[in-house]
């Protein structure tokens, strides 16, 4: 039985894309678009800008195909590009305030209020704390992967995550034991 290995497939697609196979790059887009879009929305706070950041992420990845050295996984490499693009977006639009997620996430039912409060609370975190919290809680990335994606030491991930959780717990205490 053939073992399915997404990472090996990612690297193969990346290699073929580097050799000029545009279909391979589109396949890579299909594989990672949803995950990266979800991450972009969590980092940016609104769907329209998240889509722009997602597009810039894949364009950046395409232009930097040769820069992929294989030290990190393709998933981590793409995440890193997206985090950098989100940082660029923040610098470009520093005047804008974080917009709560309203147009991209349908909040309904009895927990709708809690969901909106969660999104608003995440949006109020500093970018550094938000990045590390989203990568851990939503993307389930390991500390090592987060450290690679953010280009910071593992110890920094631990301390930022701890502070992010403390801050978030304070903001969401109405929903916690």
């Amino acid at each position: 039985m053939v073992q399915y290995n997404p990472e090996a497939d990612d690297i193969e697609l990346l290699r073929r894309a580097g050799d000029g196979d545009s279909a391979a790059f589109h396949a890579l887009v299909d594989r990672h678009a949803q995950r990266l879009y979800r991450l972009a929305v969590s980092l940016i706070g609104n769907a329209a800008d998240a889509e722009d950041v997602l597009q810039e992420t894949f364009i950046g990845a395409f232009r930097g195909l040769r820069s992929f050295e294989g030290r990190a996984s393709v998933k981590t490499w793409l995440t890193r590009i997206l985090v950098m693009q989100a940082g660029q977006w923040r610098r470009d639009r520093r005047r804008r305030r974080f917009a709560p997620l309203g147009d991209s996430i349908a909040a309904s039912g009895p927990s709708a209020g809690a969901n909106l409060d969660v999104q608003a609370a995440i949006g109020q975190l500093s970018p550094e704390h938000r990045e590390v919290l989203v990568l851990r809680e939503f993307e389930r990335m390991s500390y090592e992967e987060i450290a690679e994606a953010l280009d910071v030491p593992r110890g920094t991930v631990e301390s930022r995550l701890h502070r992010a959780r403390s801050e978030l717990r304070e903001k969401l205490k109405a929903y916690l034991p």
Partner: protein
Amino acid sequence: MNCPTSEQLSAFHDGELDEVRRVEIEGHLRQCPLCAAELERLQAMSRLLGAAPTARLLPIGLHRLHRRVDQAMEEGFLRFVRVLNTIAACVLIAGSAWLMAKTREDQTVESPMPAVPPWVGVDVVSDSPSGATSTPAAAWYLAEDSSRGDD
């Protein structure tokens, strides 16, 4: 053992501790209600975050993404062609300049233009009935022409 730090408890919650440390903290949690309550709060927050709805890229958004990637690929190709064109133009200009310089050099050093044409000073007998004297060059052409006529 003493109570673990909040960071250690956070790492325990995330499954990021080594085996030895993990077993230590597990033992401590059975005896310490404060740390057990702290861990419960961490778990509750993860559950709360996990229950939040997630954004989904709509098919039209995915289509826009693919189209934008295609544009970028096209731009990359056109940029490559422009670079090739620039290199080709540079090579052409440099080659032309070199050829011109070389031709000029050959003309001045190796085969200077004679100041006087070779036929100057050669006596040519005119065969025209009128006996008019033509130029040496004209005489040469006439001779060539008549020899072709004899064939």
